[in-house]
């Protein structure tokens, strides 16, 4: 079932929702949470929704079973999302058109939430807690889990606040259960098995992966939806020896990271499309000077400022080809939290091995969406750290010939030395340069040699990249093809299709550039009906696949209204297009 909390920013929609999610998670249940908010700090309209099940979840689904509304706008806007037989929970004092709700066969569960908060807790701000207590009562979820979370979350505010919230929640629970539980069909019970699980979003998983990979430097400029990576790393900086710098702009953010990367620190920056636009010239610098740097591009809908708090996958081709000239770069797009973690680790290894920029692409949906996951999905202590061809101080001490920073080698990789060793004096250079690093921006033979060296790297990188994941039965009549954070929606759509007798599978790409042509082409060619599924207007990945493999997608299911793809949306569009296996 899906529970949604809706209200104004500042009404505790997100904190309350996260708290309730914790209570459900501690009962062994599997969750997928998803939030939508406006680009404002107070007022407006936001929601936090929790999909809860007795099995692991991959995506949100359409339809809300119970909506706890804190504002009239939440009723107007989100009321139509409530399924038939579902319920709208609200404070008695909330004014809205009751008939409009009941006309749709939605039940009205009004309760004196504010009054209880005022009388038992002494503060009407606890109406939120009261509503969550009532919610637990209505779905008959044991109160002890709610009580535990209240104790945990309010502990730092002191015993008076904890006790007040407990009293209010308990009374809400009683009222909800006694008055409405009998009328509400959906119930949630704790599971017998309750192993420790994590409830984590994509940005946190990327931050965790960066720390696991030995990231030592992060610079950034705040921009939704990437900022929480900078905040996560900053909050762990002292413990893990990471220098964190908020810079004057995104141009400086990537350049700080390039400076740190060249000096020998694993360096990260994170931004969204607008900030990435500012980073573009420096991206080419990293490519030309062969400096490892990891850039997270958390997409939101453009163009320009676009829709700052909504989701889209509109920057793919931009990221692939941003900056003048041709140079090696790697573009990766994780689809899930566990892939965010692993991709972040791989990004640092690939950046240092191939001495080039690595762009990790996510989108708003994945950055804020949370899922419950077993801790084993995050094998922090078992990650491999591969710094590539790096000359140690001892190797440099013994070096007979002069050190060449851009030595022309068969692999294209020139062994690195960090500035500071007497035998490794060198120049990193943005002009075309010779093997030492000196300007050589005239000579044709040198140009061909050095451009050839960089091109060999680009050609060889692909050996380290992974083929797309195939999920679902082989030889299916329909193959959904996507990249990045549409994985969950596609996977659940595939499950629903197969359950209803339509044989479908999916191809999901994390490793996008250099395009893993040899590994991916047979899988793409095997598709009987290839349906590209993307969160953009033009089908950018489908274009790339066509360019790289010659295979044109038979259909495209696209979404660019700022909302994430859901399994139902995919299936509905398949039906509209009359795509049948």
């Amino acid at each position, binding site marked *: 079932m899906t529970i949604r909390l809706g209200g104004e920013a500042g009404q505790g929609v997100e904190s309350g929702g996260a708290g309730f999610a914790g209570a459900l998670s501690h009962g062994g249940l599997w969750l997928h949470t998803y939030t939508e908010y406006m680009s404002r700090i107070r007022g407006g309209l936001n929601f936090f929704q929790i999909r809860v099940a007795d099995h692991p979840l991959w995506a949100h689904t359409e339809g809300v079973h119970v909506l706890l509304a804190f504002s009239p706008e939440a009723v107007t806007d989100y009321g139509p999302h409530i399924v038939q037989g579902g319920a709208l929970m609200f404070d008695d004092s909330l004014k809205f058109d009751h008939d409009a709700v009941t006309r749709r066969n939605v039940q009205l569960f009004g309760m004196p939430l504010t009054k209880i908060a005022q009388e038992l807790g002494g503060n009407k701000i606890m109406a939120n807690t009261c509503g969550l207590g009532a919610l637990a009562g209505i779905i008959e979820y044991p109160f002890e889990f709610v009580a535990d979370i209240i104790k945990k979350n309010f502990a730092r505010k002191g015993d008076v606040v904890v006790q007040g919230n407990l009293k209010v929640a308990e009374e809400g629970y009683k009222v909800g259960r006694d008055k409405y539980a009998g009328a509400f069909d959906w119930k949630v019970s704790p599971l017998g098995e309750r192993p420790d*699980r994590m409830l984590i979003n994509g940005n946190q998983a990327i931050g965790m992966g960066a720390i696991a990979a*030995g990231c030592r430097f992060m610079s950034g400029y705040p921009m939704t939806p990437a900022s929480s990576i900078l905040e996560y790393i900053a909050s762990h900086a002292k413990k893990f*020896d990471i220098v964190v710098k908020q810079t004057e702009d995104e141009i400086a953010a990537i350049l700080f990271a390039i*400076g740190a990367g060249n000096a020998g620190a694993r360096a990260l920056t994170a931004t969204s499309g607008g900030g990435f636009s500012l980073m573009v010239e420096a991206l080419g610098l990293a490519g030309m000077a062969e400096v490892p740097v990891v850039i997270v591009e958390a997409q939101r809908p453009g163009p320009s400022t676009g829709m700052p708090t909504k989701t889209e996958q509109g920057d793919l081709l931009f990221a692939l080809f941003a900056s003048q000239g041709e140079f090696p770069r790697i573009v990766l797009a994780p689809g899930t939290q566990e892939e965010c973690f692993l991709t972040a680790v791989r990004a640092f290894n690939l950046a240092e091995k191939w001495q080039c920029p690595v762009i990790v692409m996510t989108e708003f949906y994945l950055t804020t969406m949370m899922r419950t996951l077993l801790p084993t999905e995050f094998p922090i*202590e078992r990650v491999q750290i591969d710094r590539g061809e790096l000359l140690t101080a001892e190797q440099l001490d013994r070096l007979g010939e002069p050190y060449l920073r851009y030595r022309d080698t068969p692999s294209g990789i020139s062994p690195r030395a960090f*500035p500071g060793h007497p035998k490794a004096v060198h120049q990193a250079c943005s002009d075309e340069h010779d093997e030492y690093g000196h300007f050589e921006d005239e000579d044709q033979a040198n140009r061909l040699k050095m451009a050839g060296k960089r091109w060999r790297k680009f050609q060889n990188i692909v050996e380290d990249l992974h083929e797309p994941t195939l999920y679902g039965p082989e030889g299916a009549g329909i193959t959904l093809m996507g990249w990045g954070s549409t994985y969950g929606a596609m996977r659940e759509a595939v499950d629903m299709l197969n359950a209803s007798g339509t044989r479908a599978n999916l191809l999901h790409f994390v490793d996008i550039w250099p395009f893993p042509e040899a590994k991916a082409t047979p899988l793409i060619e095997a598709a009987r009906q290839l349906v590209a599924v993307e969160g953009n207007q033009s089908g950018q990945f489908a274009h790339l696949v066509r360019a790289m493999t010659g295979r044109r997608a038979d259909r495209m299911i696209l979404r660019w209204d700022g909302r994430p793809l859901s399994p139902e949306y995919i299936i509905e569009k398949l039906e509209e297009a009359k795509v049948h296996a």
Partner: protein
Amino acid sequence: MLDLKTFNNQIKVTWCPGCGDYGILNAVKSALAQLEIHPHEVIFFSGIGCGSKLPDYMNANAFTTIHGRALPVAMGTKLANHDLNVICITGDGDGYGIGGNHFLNILRRNPDIVHIAENNMVYGLTKGQYAPTSERGFITSTTPEGSIEIAFNPLTTAINGGALFVARGFSGDPKHLAKLIMAAIQHKGYALVDVLQPCVIYNKINTYEYYRERVYKLEEAGHNPADRDAAWHKAQEWGEKIPIGILYQVEGQPTYEEQVSELKAGPIAKRILQPLTRAQADALRQEFF
């Protein structure tokens, strides 16, 4: 003192004969030699412009970056390895125009970085357009009726912005300039040395002769660099008399990197990377239970 040849390399210098950059190159080498800083102990950063080729003409670590961006790349390196002496070479358009935001921000950060700005008041490498430091009325191919804007004053901006070492040199007096650069290197914190650098091709106003007639040395004029008001006053003196020397210096303030707690145990670039321990990993995961 190191042999000056220590810093020579085989690269052919491509500056025009008579270019003010030669004096700066010689002064930089002389300063490093006198301070006995070896080529591997220093790293130069430059942007784009005639003067930004300077690191290419020296035997020393360097990162020649993109237009206007030497300062942020240098900051990243300083924060990763503060054992290195970091010297930025920018032009006036490069350092004060396109890189202006980075200039404003480094002033208030005080990293131990030397910033030598080759200020020829014109865009040389793109063949003679006006620069942020060009004097009002300066006629160029893009300002045929003369520049309408007032000239950017890097010295007042630096003092106002929080810099604690602000100097001006003249590339026609490389010995004096070398002393200023030495003082800048020895100053703990951000140090700006704005250098009056004649462009013999595109700036027919601010020539060697122009400067020789006007410059005077602050240290010979009884100027007290610790006096901020006096420094502010001297930073605005232009015309009949042009001061060179250290305008402003305050010592004893902590650098940016000294205040970063993660750097107390030494440069982060020198740490050995290894996977986290089980206990560290558990702690990270448990935050999400």
